[in-house]
């Protein structure tokens, strides 16, 4: 179904209220570049490449950003301010379909001095501010909260804390009759189990914060001291992953180590890109902070009770390439 004029107005209202929400709380609105000469290496993402050309001088490659986070963290490092941004982001090689568009709108906000729990409350307040009469119960706060370990116990009957070694994880997959490829790393085995047995069962009667992701899933979230988890949550609304939150990993060494591990994994990328090796340096003096990234189109879907991303985009990608190319 195509976007109606009513949905267009509602989306515009949500954009305005989002800005008002953060400006009222004294967050600095940033407007950072969509084109970047280098990116941070993230092995889970493929990007779009383009290039700067000049009729007489040498050109250079440019990349459409998969997220504005790198720029925003530079602003935080330099100003110590809480920041927010609404902007376009681009991800290649992902699905085109019900909840995916290669170009999408991202809402990111970072709170200095906050932890990921504080960000749950802030995000609940945001949802309250954005909800309208048409917002279904499934998208209204307060959010339900569950740790990943609780979700595994509840929906797969498994003790995640006992599955941190590969053989135990393989046994768990076998107990669920799931295919486990030989040589698969722990993270893949975890994802197979999560995506097969846990995620489809997550309650959808109201938004759900799934908290405390296992530390083996490498990302820029900080470790929870003494626990095998990261200070990271994902928000599910109507079974759709809509936002994630990291309490930021903020030491230069840790970020540099992350770079090395991701560059190793990115060797097989379809679209290799230049890497900004100076980026870890900003963490030499970086305040404790926690940030949330929300897929804004999906947020609009949830708040307006829409079933497909095509309903909240006037020119969805499927309109250019045909509905048959939905992947």
């Amino acid at each position: 179904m195509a976007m109606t004029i009513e949905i267009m107005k509602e989306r515009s209202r949500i954009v305005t209220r989002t800005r008002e929400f953060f400006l009222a709380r004294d967050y600095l609105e940033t407007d950072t570049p969509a084109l970047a000469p280098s990116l941070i290496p993230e092995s889970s993402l493929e990007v779009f490449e383009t290039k700067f050309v000049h009729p007489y001088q040498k050109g250079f490659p440019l990349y459409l950003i998969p997220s504005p986070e790198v720029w925003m963290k530079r602003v935080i490092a330099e100003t110590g301010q809480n920041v927010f941004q609404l902007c376009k982001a681009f991800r290649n090689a992902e699905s085109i379909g019900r909840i995916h568009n290669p170009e999408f709108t991202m809402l990111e906000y970072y709170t200095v001095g906050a932890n990921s729990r504080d960000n749950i409350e802030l995000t609940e307040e945001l949802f309250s501010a954005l909800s309208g009469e048409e917002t279904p119960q499934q998208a209204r706060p307060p959010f339900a909260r569950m740790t990943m370990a609780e979700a595994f116990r509840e929906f797969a009957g498994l003790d995640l804390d006992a599955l941190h070694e590969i053989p135990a994880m393989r046994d768990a997959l076998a107990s669920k009759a799931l295919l486990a490829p030989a040589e698969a790393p722990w993270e893949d085995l975890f994802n197979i189990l999560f995506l097969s047995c846990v995620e489809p069962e997550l309650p959808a009667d109201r938004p759900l914060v799934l908290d405390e992701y296992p530390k083996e899933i490498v990302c820029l979230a900080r470790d929870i001291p003494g626990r095998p988890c990261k200070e990271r949550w994902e928000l599910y609304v109507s079974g759709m992953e809509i936002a994630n939150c990291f309490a930021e990993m903020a030491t230069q060494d840790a970020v540099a180590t992350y770079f090395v591990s991701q560059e190793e994994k990115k060797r097989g990328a379809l679209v290799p890109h230049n890497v900004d090796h100076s980026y870890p340096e900003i963490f030499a003096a970086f305040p404790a902070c926690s940030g949330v990234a929300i897929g804004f189109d999906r947020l609009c879907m949830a708040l307006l009770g829409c079933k497909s991303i095509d309903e909240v985009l006037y020119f969805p990608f499927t309109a250019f390439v045909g509905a048959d190319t939905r992947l």
Partner: protein
Amino acid sequence: MVRGGEINIGTCLLINGNPHIVVEREFVSPGKGSAFARVKAKNLKNGNVITQTIKTADYVEDAQVELVDCQYQYSDGENFMFMNNETYEQFGVPISVHEDKTPYLKDGETYTLVMWENEPIDIKIPYKMIFTVVESENYVRGDTVSGATKPVTTETGLVVRVPLFIKQGEKILINTETNDYVERVND
């Protein structure tokens, strides 16, 4: 072998030695994770539907299948009986596993059967098929709402909605994926 990212609805996978046909597939990328294909696949031996999640870059075994044209003859209550159009060999396909195909099987019609290790494991239903209306409510004269439809039953027991001008005994073309009426067919 087939990669997770190449799996489509209809792909035949060999899971724990049994052929399974993919009936649903979605690509999912968990936050900060690789892309996976989450599939629902029907075991073609017992009809059970299972979920499997396969990394798009990983290989899984696919079932080496053969397509054979066969004529549907009758149902004996337990099996749909078919005859191979070339060898005239007759065999049954268990109804319990393929019950959803019942309203699309017409006596004497040719279907493509999916064979695995010389056993029929699936019946391919043509995208569009012609059916005869055997039961139809009377058209109420004067009901001129444009686009109005009524339910009719075909000779195979399929219930579809058709325009009001369709009468009992007439032939209609149906999209078998959506059960939507396409057009009236004149002999």
